[in-house]
């Protein structure tokens, strides 16, 4: 059995689902940020696999993945900065406690 496109796509879908589950179920803001990174990396796997198997002559998917990595780094930096700001206010990073505003 050789490894084909489907295998990569299944891996990507599984990783994406794990990330989404973590975002919905976890309560620590830093862990949620890590789960978002898992989701983005799942997308990267799908992009690179599509690029390799669907249009092997073009590098579009790989380039796209590089852009995603760069933007994800910027997003994580801002995310951590905001988490530090909220920690200074509340001495906590538990998202359940951030309920000053609801309804």
């Amino acid at each position, binding site marked *: 059995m050789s490894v084909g496109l489907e295998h990569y*796509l299944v891996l*990507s879908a599984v990783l*994406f689902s794990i*990330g*989404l589950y973590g*975002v919905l179920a976890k309560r620590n*803001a830093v862990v*949620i*940020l890590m789960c*978002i990174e898992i*989701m*983005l990396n*799942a*997308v990267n796997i*799908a*992009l690179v*696999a*599509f690029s390799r198997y*669907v*249009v092997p002559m*073009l590098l*579009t*998917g790989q*380039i*796209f993945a590089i*852009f*995603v990595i760069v*933007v994800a780094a*910027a*997003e994580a930096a*801002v*995310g951590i*900065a*905001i*988490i530090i*700001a*909220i920690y*200074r*206010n*509340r001495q906590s990073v538990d*998202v359940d406690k*951030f309920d*000053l*505003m*609801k*309804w």
Partner: protein
Amino acid sequence: MSISEFRFLAPELNLLGFALLVILIDLFVKQKKVLAGLSIAGLVVSAGFTVVMWGMPATDIFYRMLAIDNFALFFKLLLLAAAALIILASQDYVSKFDRFQGEYYALVLISAVGMMLLVAATDLIAIYVALELSGISLYVLATFLKDKKSTEAGLKYLLLGAVASAVLLYGMALVFGFTGRTCLMCIAEYVQGMPGAGLLSNPALLLGMVLLAAGFGFKIACFPFQMWVPDVYEGAPTPITAYLSVASKAAGFAVVLRVFFVALGSPEWISLNWGILFAVLSAITMTVGNVVAILQSNIKRMLGYSSIAQAGYLMVGLATIGMAIGNDALGQSGLLFFIMSYAVTNLGAFIAIIAISNKIKSDEIDDYTGMGKRAPLLALALTFCLISLIGLPPTAGLIAKIYIFSGAVQHGLLWLVIVAVINSCISAFYYLRVVKVMWTGEPASKVKVPSSWALRIALALCCLFVLLLGVIPGGFVGIAEAAARILGS
């Protein structure tokens, strides 16, 4: 591609230059008002470049990454105007910060650059990068006050925004995998070349389309991705709330329109499907927005729900375009006209609120009691804008609603228009409650509410345009039609 293509990016590059200049000059000057003036100068110069390009034949630059057409230029002008009005209105607000005033103005400019690229982007990669450029600047701006509410708003906005962009990316990856291309025109060619089949026989395309709609739905705040709106609007600095509700939403609609209309608009079996999807979401979005808005006691939060409802009306336009099969300009120009009128109206309402809350330090509707006696002009302007949001004459809101709903009726969406009209009646209740409180109650104190000249100018401009769009809409309809025509060709 050649170096000379950079001249088409003059508005964006100029604005980026001014943003860096603002940060640099911030280091030397003590008088921070200079920075606001400099930012507005940058926006005016960019608007000048944009106006010069208006009417040119549409071109694609950077290997079909960006389009320079009237549609993009229309939105660029709208975004530049919104950013300029926000900066005029935020001077008093920002002068109270003890640090980072320069960064505030620079971030507003950089997010404007991101949105301007977003409305011109015609490639999935460019769309994603532009979306994040505007998004990340806005996350920082929402957190700018660094108090309990503002940081909570920023964190909620960041986490939900990041999840939405991951979902959007997964959709983009599927569309890319299905078609092998990332540029919207190439995707359109591929989809048109497919043997006539239903979406159900192409599950990858169906899933990709749904995920794209979900990711963009966050940006335009449609149901069920509207949960962040009230919290972020309440906690963020008020000028940023206004900016989010107008500029970010307009840019979101522009990109939705371009992706769905240009890339997935053509074969009937695909456009009818997303037309119905948006019609159903539209009905739920406006109902949720209007019904929950009735319960609110905080005016920023109420306007947050009101902006969800307005997004619902705008989506009537999207649904019309989907149902209209092929090229029908009425839905598109109606949508653009509605965005124009919504932008000036909502900006006007928020600028009046900024002026009032600068003085009374409260966003509770009850604290607006008797504002008609304390600040008659501000109260009058706010009343005028709220009337326009309901859609009563002689304001922009009425013309915009008639325009967008008449397009929907022509394409068999009568049920949706009936839902929308019922919703407009519901909305009158909570808008008029604010008006009633302002003009009938006894004021808590006799102290007048002062406002700066910059803010008065911004408010007067907004009210002027609300009136102009309502009384002599002809010229503005012409602009909307010219901008919409490009999409069809």
